[in-house]
Each structure stands twice: as C-alpha cells, then as structure tokens.
C-alpha cells in the first residue's frame, strides 16, 4: 500500500506531467516517468536507511500535499520586503516553484551572464539541459530527488560565459506563502560557470506567513577550470515548512567555490551537498550555521569527494539548538585513490541551549591517497558557565550574555564572507533567531 504521502502526489500524475514545461520532449518525458515510477515504487526512505537515520519521515508519510500551486502566478508577494542589502542586480523569483516574471529583474543583464527560468530554457533550447535533466537515476537518488526529477515545474538556468566577471550578485529568491492547502513544489536549478568566469550567487529562501508546504530543490553547479563562485545561502523558510535540497557540485581544475550558508527556517529542512573536486587544484570552502529552535529539525549533509590531485576543501559549520530544536550534521570527506596532495579540513561545533535540544553530528573521513593532510572534528557542548558568569558579573543581563556568547560561537561561520553588506545582514538574521535577541548594547 502506498502511503498517503505518495498517493496524494502520484494522483493525477499523468495530467501533471503533461502540463510541465518541456512536456513532449521524448527524452524528458521518459526521464520524468521513470523517476515517478521509482518514487511510487519505493516511497519515502525508511528508518533503516542510513542516510535518514537521524531524520525520521514517519510523520511526513502520513501527510498529503497538493501537487503544484495553480494560483502561484497571482499570489501577492511584497518584493520590496524581501530585498537584500547590497544585492540589487539580476533577480529571479519563484513562488511555490513557479517563475514570477513580474517580481523578477532580468533586464539589462551584464554581458556574459545568461539567466533564464528553466521553463523558458526548455522551450528555447532544451538540448544543453539534457545532460542534467536526464540523469536523475543516480545511485544516491531518494524519494525527494525523484519527486523533483519527475515534477520540477521550473528553476533557474544560469550560465556565465568563459572569462566573464560578473560583479553584481545574482539574487535567486524562492518564496512560500500561506495557501488553502499544504502544497508541494519542486525547483530545479542549473548553474554553470565557464572557464575563468566569476560570479556571486545569493540563494534565498523566504517564508512569508505561516504555512506547511513541502519544497524540494535540486541544483547542479558546474565550475569549469579556474572559475570562481561565491555562493551565499540564506534559508528562512516558514517555521513549519519542509524544504529538502540537494546540491551537486562539480569543480574542475583550479576552480574555487566558497559557500556561506545560514539554515534558519523550516520545520524540517534538509540540505545535502555533494561535491566532487575533479580537477587538479580545485578548492571548496563551505561555512555555515544551522539554528533550530521550537520544534525545528535542520539537517545538513556534506559529501565532499576529492578526486583530483592537490585539491583542497575546508568546511566550518556551527550548530546552535534551542528549545526542542534538533540539528543533524553529517560531514563526509573522501579522498579518492590518486588524489594525492589533498588538503581537507572539516570542523563542526555545536551548542545546546536547552536540555531538550539535540544535535547529532557525524564526521566521516576516508582516505585512499598519499600525502594527504586531513583534519576533522566535531563537538557538542553547552555555553561556558564561567564565561556567562564573567559577563553577568559585569552587569550584562543573563539573556544578553547568553546571546553574546552564542553569537560569538557562530561568528566563525560568517567572518570571512567578503560581501560586507551581506555579512552584516546575515549576522543580523542569525542573531534574530538566537535567544535573548532584542537586548542590544
């Protein structure tokens, strides 16, 4: 028997598939149908699935979501309220996974930047997308990746021409708003930087008003040789929304990717980041903080594979859980045979602010190459009582003192973000989620 979750999403699947952008392309239809069948056949990952060990889906299994939002094009969104400081270049906006030209800003794109919704790209020239959209059936694909591959309505297709240096940050904004039903939406993004190109991308998830929608997102990010991507993620979904993301990164020779991510929203939000450093000299730096509170469950999984020689990765993540918040962090680094001279570091420190909060962290390191420098560590602890007393003994109220120490704990995740306005803004957003905020000196 299929679960209510699967049943609701698979209902009317034929009509849904027929309405998707690109329907009628034989290869795409086939890929979508194949993914749908696999989704219906296998359902959600069960408790025995190692990758979902700490993120139980039993409650989700019993919920039914409406596939897609027929009203997405007309839902009111105050775009001004969602602007980010220092980010006023190209903007692509999706509401419940549906592209909103009226809210986007795609005029006067800088030279060398191609930025379109997937729905448009599929109509104009689908062939370059075939590689990405027909390979959903990878071994690690789970129910959400399949759901996404079968039903993704739209997404961002971003290409930077070889050598182009795009200065203005691109704002990818995805918004959820209240609706009569709990909706399921799916977004599929493709980012490709040509040789020597550079770009700053801001991936922004915003929830406006309370709702319990389910979003899935799959992104392919391909960095060709010597290209540079600064990627800033601000995940502020509604506190009861579900968001399941999978990022697949591929870095060619001497490519550099720096990610700064804040995971703040979501009742259940999971992000899987699979990165392959497959060109010599490639470098991946990831920094982030996840801050579950209330009954939020935030799950971050890094799977970083060093395949080529002299590649480097540095992951620095902080978790802070308050109230009944639950954090899960899985950081795996694999240094493949032949990836000699790899330099890999991973650190995940976590703070529990309440006796009911919980964070599970699992660092995993596998090395099959020579002359590798690798360091990884994870800790879970509480605020230092001595520091707290020191601050209070100087007159700082207990809440403010706790906030100050918690901020200090998270600081490392944002410290080396070059974009100053965003660094400050993200810092503020982070602080606003922490207990005791509002007490400022």
């Amino acid at each position, binding site marked *: 028997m299929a679960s209510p979750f699967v049943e609701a999403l698979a209902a009317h699947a034929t009509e849904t598939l027929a309405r998707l952008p690109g329907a009628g392309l034989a290869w795409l239809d086939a890929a979508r149908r194949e993914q749908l069948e696999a989704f219906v056949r296998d359902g959600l990952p069960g408790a025995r699935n190692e990758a979902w060990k700490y993120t139980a889906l039993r409650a989700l299994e019993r919920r039914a979501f409406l596939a897609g939002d027929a009203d997405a094009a007309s839902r009111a969104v105050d775009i001004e309220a969602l602007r980010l400081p220092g980010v006023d270049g190209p903007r692509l906006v999706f509401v419940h996974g549906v592209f909103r030209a009226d809210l986007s800003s795609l005029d006067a794109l800088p030279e060398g930047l191609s930025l379109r919704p997937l729905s448009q790209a599929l109509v104009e020239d689908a062939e370059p997308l075939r590689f990405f959209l027909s390979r959903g059936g990878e071994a690690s694909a789970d129910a959400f990746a399949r759901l996404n591959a079968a039903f993704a309505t739209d997404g961002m297709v971003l290409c930077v021409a070889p050598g182009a240096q795009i200065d203005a940050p691109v704002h990818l904004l995805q918004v959820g708003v209240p609706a009569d039903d709990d909706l399921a939406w799916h977004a599929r993004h493709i980012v490709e930087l040509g040789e020597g190109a550079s770009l700053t991308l801001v991936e922004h998830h915003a929830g406006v008003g309370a709702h319990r929608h389910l979003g899935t997102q799959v992104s392919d990010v391909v960095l060709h040789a010597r290209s540079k991507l600064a990627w800033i993620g601000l995940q502020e979904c509604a506190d009861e929304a579900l968001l399941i993301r999978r990022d697949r990164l591929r870095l060619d020779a001497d490519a550099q990717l720096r990610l700064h991510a804040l995971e703040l929203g979501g009742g259940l939000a999971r992000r899987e980041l699979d990165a392959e450093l497959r060109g010599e000299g490639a470098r991946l730096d990831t920094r982030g903080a996840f801050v579950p509170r209330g009954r939020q469950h935030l799950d971050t999984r890094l799977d970083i594979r060093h395949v080529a020689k002299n590649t480097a990765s540095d992951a620095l993540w902080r978790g802070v859980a308050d109230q009944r918040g639950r954090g899960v962090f899985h950081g795996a680094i694999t240094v493949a045979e032949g990836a000699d001279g790899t330099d890999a570091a991973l650190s995940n420190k976590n703070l529990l602010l309440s006796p009911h909060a919980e964070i599970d962290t699992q660092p995993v390191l596998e090395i099959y190459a020579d002359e590798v420098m690798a360091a990884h560590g994870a800790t879970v602890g509480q605020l230092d*009582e001595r520091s707290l007393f*020191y601050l209070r*003994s*100087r007159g700082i109220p207990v809440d403010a003192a706790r906030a100050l120490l918690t901020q200090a704990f998270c600081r490392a995740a944002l410290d080396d973000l070059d974009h100053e306005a965003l660094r400050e803004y993200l810092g503020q957003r982070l602080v606003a989620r922490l207990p005791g905020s509002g007490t400022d000196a």
Partner: protein
Amino acid sequence: MLKIENLHARVEGKDILKGLSLDIGAGEVHAIMGPNGAGKSTLGNVLSGRDGYEVTEGSVTFMGQDLLALEPEERAAAGVFLAFQYPVEIPGVNNTYFLRAAYNAQRKARGEAELDSMEFLKIVREKLKIMKLSPDLLNRAVNEGFSGGEKKRNEIFQMALLEPKLAILDETDSGLDIDALKQVAEGVNAQRDPQRSFLLITHYQRLLDYIEPDYVHVLADGRIVESGDKELAKKLEAHGYAWVADHGEPAGAA
C-alpha cells in the same frame, strides 16, 4: 555598606564557608588573607552571585538591600564588582563591545541614559591611560591572548570604568611583576573614595605596602579567625598561618 552575618555556603555538596561574619563600612579597605582552599574565592563568588554556590545560612546586606536575593547582573548594577582571580578568555566577543554592553546595561538598570560609542570611547581612553594599558587590547576578544599581567590589569581597568561601590579584588596581585603591581595599586588608590569600599584578597603583604588597608582579616576554614590592622599582615608574613591557630581562638569580625 556591606554586612555579612554568619554566612554558610556550600559548593558541590561541600561546606566551604562556615559562619563568616564581616562588616565593611563605606570608604574602607579590608584585606583578607588565608591559606589556600580556605574559602576566599568562594566568598567573592558568593558575594557576586555565581551559580552553584549555595548559601545555607546567614545573610548579606549591601547598602540596605538583601544582596543574596539579587542576580549577578543586578548586584553589578547595585555596585558590586569582582576582579577575578582567573579572568576568563572569551573568544569571539570583542572587548570594546563587551565593555560598552556592560557599562550601558548597568546604567540602564539604574535608570541612567546609555552612552553612544563616541562618548563611551572617550571615557575608555581616559581610564586606559590610568592603567597604562595598550588601546590595542580593546580590539581583541575579551582577555583572549592577554598575558597574565594584562588580564589582571584589565580587571582593574574594568573596575575603573564601571566605578563600583564595593570592589572585591581576588588575588589581583598574584603573578604581577613589580611595575604592574605598582600600576594596579595606583589604579586602586586612584579609585579610593569615601563612598567606595574594597575587599582585597591576597597572599602577600607586599600589596598592602602599596594599598594601605584599614583592616586585615585572616580567613581559615570558612571563617574569619583573626582581625586586626595592617600589623597583622606583617605578623602573618613573619610567622605563617600556623601562628593564628596557636595564638588564639577564632575571633569575630572587626
């Protein structure tokens, strides 16, 4: 100003203070000496309200209020300051930010106007000069990477900045070189005021050459066992604490 009566306190289930009484009048400087483990730091911690220090008996009245009923931050705002025996390093918390937060929190608690960063920096610079501390320390994290002596001087600098009514200095002289000791003493002497009292916890009579106490007490086994003037400190220096035990039965407060 401060009246401690028959104070009993327990840490981790162990009785440390066992009937301590002490009276400190406004403007007075009291020195407390005593063997390691006698309970001197415990007294400082109890007075400033540290968690885990359970008062099982007795009372502490500070300027007419029940001090023990206040939270640590309320005690600070009321005018109690503890210079720590071991100041804590707090990575990630900027020193200037911390100082201003503390300064303004106290002002706010007392219903006074908070200072903006320009006004505040002016005061900070003045006080830094008195303590001969490098302004660089302001840009670092609280106590992070400070030398032992810098940490102690930083405590006195904070005292100068926060202008408490009662300053408890827990072995602020330990680990200081001669020059730093003089600076700390100068810092304290500059703060002496008919309205400000000091409780100096120390092992060394030398500090008392620079900061002249009105009273000297010996704290042993959780009680004040002997009180006198600064001559008492000299006797202790010459004869050790065993002398107190031989010399007489436990005495009350001064």
